[in-house]
C-alpha cells in the first residue's frame, strides 16, 4: 500500500496506524481526567467579554474567521469587481484567453 512518488512515498495505512496511536495516547490522557470537572458550572457557557449571552445568539457561518476574511477583503474586493456578472465581460475575458492561446500557439 505505498503510493510511490518521485521523491518518496505515501502510505495511508502507516499514517492511519500513526494516527491511531496518537488517538490512543490522547484517549489515555483524557481518561485520566475528572469527568465532572466542568459540569454544571458557568464555565460551560461561552465567554462573551464577560457579558451574559443574549437569548438566541448564535455564531453563524459569516462570523467564523472574521478577522481572516476581513484581512483578505482588500484583495478579494478587486477580484469581486472582476466578476461583474455581465455577459459581455464573460465574452471579453474569453477573448483574452483566446488571444493568449493564439499567441502562445504561434511559438
Amino acid at each position, binding site marked *: 500500500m505505498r503510493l510511490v512518488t518521485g521523491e518518496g512515498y505515501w502510505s495511508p495505512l502507516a499514517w492511519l496506524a500513526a494516527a491511531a496511536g496518537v488517538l490512543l495516547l490522547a484517549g489515555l490522557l483524557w481518561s485520566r481526567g475528572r469527568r465532572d470537572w466542568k459540569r454544571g458550572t458557568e464555565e460551560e457557557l461561552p465567554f462573551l467579554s464577560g457579558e451574559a449571552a443574549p437569548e438566541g445568539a448564535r455564531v453563524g457561518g459569516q462570523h467564523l474567521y472574521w478577522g481572516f476574511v476581513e484581512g483578505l477583503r482588500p484583495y478579494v474586493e478587486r477580484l*469581486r469587481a472582476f466578476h461583474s*456578472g*455581465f455577459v*459581455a465581460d464573460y465574452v471579453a475575458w474569453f477573448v483574452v484567453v483566446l488571444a493568449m492561446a493564439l499567441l502562445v500557439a504561434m511559438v
Partner: protein
Amino acid sequence: MTGNLPFVVCMVFVALGLWTLLAKRNLIKLVIGLTLIENGVNLFLVALGYVQGGAVPIYTYAPPGVRMVLPTPQALTLTSIVIGLATTALALAFVVVIWRHRGTLDARKVRELRG
C-alpha cells in the same frame, strides 16, 4: 480570380459576431451575434469544399465528365446548421423567461449573479 475572398469574408463574419457579443447590450442582439458567428463558420466550411469549376456532388442528372465539389464539408455544414438552430432556440427560450422575471433585456441589468 476572387482569391481567398470567401475565406476572408467568413473570418470577417466571425469577428463581427464576436464584436457584437462584446459591444452590444441587448440579449436578443447577443443571440443574433451568435447566429452571425455560426453563419461565418458554415460559410467557411462550405467554401473549403469548393473546387474550381466543380459540379454538385449528386449523380442524378449530373453533367458528364465534370469534377464534383467535395461532399464532406457539406455534410458537416448540415450538422452545424441544425446545431445552430438548436442553440438559437434554446437561447431564445432563456431570453423569454428572463424577460418574464426581470422585465428587461439589458444585459447590464441582468446580473444578479455576480461576485
